[in-house]
């Protein structure tokens, strides 16, 4: 256990440094974005027919909670706020705390990502085993090439294709947001059904995009394990097929769990495309909106949250690994 504790401590220390660095980067990037939101808003109000003077005043009031003080002072404030999970207030969300806005959006990202990843993980692993067993045959080739292709193709291509096919050409599935607007939110069949129906395409996209990677990873992992002597040894000892299969599966999947945790983290960042295509109001969409609306605080917050997710995923992956792999547990270095 002490080994795990030690690893955890190391990871946490590194994670904190990482977060500080990312926070600093995002702070400075965000501050160097051109475009003065105040001046722009004045123009906008004037275009809407407000007298220039009034527009000026209205804008000043609106942006009253704009950053004050020198850049350094702002930086210190920002970092101080970070300690209390205070990421500032979102301009576009009427001064709501960024953390609240993010929390609201996060659920639309986390659930589909989770569902898609797990789905693809399960299917990919089964197919990966198959591809490994049939690796010298035609089927194995097809599985491997299609896996590479799916792995290679960017998410948005898959998303757009799925949407074009199943929502436009043969409109059998919705692609216009997270839920049908006419259903009363709450725990009722219609609403839940609609939620599920709307989740099909985004989840399928997440799944399809990740599936290729899983099949490839699982295939190579299984091939490696199949080549390991202990599998042949088990066979020669007359072990049951089912037991041998379990041996293969467990040893082959182990390294994949690490990737699983990491990919969950990464997908949060990659959700941008899928959310844009399927109009899912999650973190990715929030990030794009905050960028187009010049919402400094929100942009920095979303970016930081996504990075944080990855850092946490890293830590979880590693800890998970240490828990299930006895070699790591006892402090041996394993090159994974």
């Amino acid at each position, binding site marked *: 256990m002490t080994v795990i504790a030690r690893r955890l401590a190391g990871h946490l220390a590194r994670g904190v440094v990482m977060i500080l660095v990312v926070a600093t980067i995002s702070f400075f990037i965000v501050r160097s974005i051109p475009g003065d939101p105040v001046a722009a*808003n004045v123009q906008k109000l004037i275009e809407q027919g407000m*007298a220039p003077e009034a527009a000026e*005043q209205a804008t000043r009031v609106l942006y009253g909670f704009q950053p004050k003080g020198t850049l350094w002072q702002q930086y210190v404030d920002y970092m101080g706020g970070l300690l209390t999970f205070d990421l500032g207030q979102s301009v576009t969300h009427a001064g709501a705390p960024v953390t609240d806005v993010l929390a*609201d959006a996060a659920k639309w990202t986390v659930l589909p990502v989770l569902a898609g990843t797990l789905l693809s993980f399960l299917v990919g692993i089964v197919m990966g085993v198959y591809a490994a067993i049939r690796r010298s045959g035609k089927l194995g080739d097809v599985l491997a090439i299609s896996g590479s292709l799916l792995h290679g193709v960017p998410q948005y291509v898959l998303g757009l294709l799925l949407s074009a096919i199943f929502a436009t050409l043969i409109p059998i599935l919705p692609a216009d947001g997270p839920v049908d607007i006419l259903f009363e939110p709450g725990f009722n069949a219609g609403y839940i059904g609609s939620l599920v129906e709307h989740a099909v395409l985004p989840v399928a996209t997440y799944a399809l995009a990740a599936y290729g990677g899983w099949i490839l990873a699982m295939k190579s992992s299984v091939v490696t394990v199949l080549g390991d002597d202990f599998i042949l040894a088990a066979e020669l000892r007359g072990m049951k097929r089912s037991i041998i299969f379990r041996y293969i599966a467990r040893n082959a999947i182990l390294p994949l769990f690490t990737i699983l945790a990491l990919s969950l983290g990464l997908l949060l960042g990659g959700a941008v495309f899928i959310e844009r295509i399927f109009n899912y109001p999650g973190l990715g969409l929030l990030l794009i909106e905050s960028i187009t609306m010049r919402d400094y605080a929100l942009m920095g917050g979303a970016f930081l949250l996504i990075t944080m997710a990855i850092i946490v995923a890293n830590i979880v992956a590693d800890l998970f690994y240490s828990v299930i792999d006895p070699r790591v547990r006892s402090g041996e270095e394993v090159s994974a």
Partner: protein
Amino acid sequence: ACSGGTTNNSGGSGGGGGLFTTIDVARPGLDASAPANPWNPKGNAFLGYNGMKLAWVKNHLTDPNQFYPGVAANWDIAADNSSITIHVQPNAKWSDGKPVTAEDVRLSIGLAYTTGSTAFAITPGAAGAAAEVQVVDDKTVKVTQDMTNPSAKFARGVLDNWVVPAHVWGSVLPADFWDKLKTSRGEGEAADKAREEILALGQKVLAFAPPKDVSAGPFTLERVNPGEALLVKNPNFYNAANVAPAQVKFLNYSGNEQIWNYLSAGKLDHSGFIAAPPDVMNRIKQAPGSHIITGFSPVAVGMAFNQSKKPYDNVHVRRGLAYLIDRAQVTKVASPDGGTPALTTSGIHQKPAQEWIGSELSSLEPYNHDVAKAEAEFTEAGLKKQDGKWTLADGSPWKVTMHAPAGFSDWISAQENIKSQLIDNGVDAEVVTVADYPVYLEEIAAGKYDVGFWLMALGPAPYDIYQRLYGTSNGWTNVAGKVSHNAPGKGGNWMGGAEEIDVEGVGKVNPGELTAELNAASAEEAKPIMAKLAKAANQDLPVIQLWDYVNTQFTNTSRFTGWPQNDSDLLRLPAGVWIQLGMIKAKQ
């Protein structure tokens, strides 16, 4: 705020009941955490539904001072625009049952001062600002104008303001607010300090969250989810008997595509204007009950020049371009359903143009697509054509670099089309986009672009129309009724046009000063000025007017009827106003 328990199409009281679904086109992304506060830009106060103004601006083609009644049942405007007396609806009540009083109006005006408003400005010398607010009796308020820099739009500035209940909002303003306001009108340090304090109050106002929505409108806010805002009928509304829907749902959306889908599925009873490509438009039209109403939208878009840059300083180059660009084609490609090609450049949207300048309109040069004329103009400007390409007089290459903000897809599409048209005719061109509209505005004002698109003809007030061409952006500033001119490149003057133009048949005019005169002029006084300005704009071409926007509204007649007709002035007001006026009826 989750248990509504109401189901679709449940019956309601009043004019037939039912659920009315709509979206707020100005606001993608509903915010569940935002307060029911009309001043808050994300606030859940929906114009015309649970957000009430004193009156609803008609946006009449020429008269800025026409309104539909709101909280104010009627009003008297002094002949010289020096004051307005407002009479509150006699049986108006807040949704909590308390009557709407003059005191509510006065408090709301106070709040408007803190957040900035055309009539209730604390900036010294602002045009059309109020001087005094007087509670005459329980239901009457009189507001007088500061006549040092009067504006014909004074009444509009006053009536176009929110009204909120004093018994909910009263605590937001300090007791000494009105004294402070008085101080702020003066000069010197005390006044500056008072203004600062009032501004600071503004932030408080913006952030204020009433514990419960108390509305004088036809609806009150029940709850907001991330997906929708639900409003229910306010039985205390003075015209409640004629309000048809029992509930209103504002749906959340994050992209236009979503609205297209809603509309083609017939899910929305109403949606304001959103751009849609023709095929999508057709699809929407095919939805059962789908109906499209079009009307005048007081905006046009033009291609504007920075005249401090060569060769755009030469009026012949601008005219040449005007002849060269086929506006019909541009409009067809860029905004087929949302705009009509501008007949000519007058600086005025073509609908009200007839009203303002009448027969003069036909005498303006239409700049019909004519390559020969364009080449003649270019030649006159001294440009040279070499190997089929136009170059500057000194032989250096000429490239028309047009700028547009990213995301303005109709502008970009138009520029792309113009680019192709220009290149076809030997004028090199390119399209450059800028990250977003704020940056665009900032950079265009800083004179960084040669050519850009510019919203113009912002009606209906004549001053507003021409200040887009002959206002700050072209060098003229109007402070406290005094007009001054900045040199090109200074004080936001990026158009850099001449201060005086010799207009054919009129003589030398200073268009900026003429424009400023419109501020205080009555409609009749304005007409000849407008004619002069139209001529000036047509001849001098600071911008080439490309298309006039069309106000396109989407409605669905499956559940509700009584929608406004095409070209109705109501189209420029939110559907909530149509409902509170009692027009919308549930389908039997």
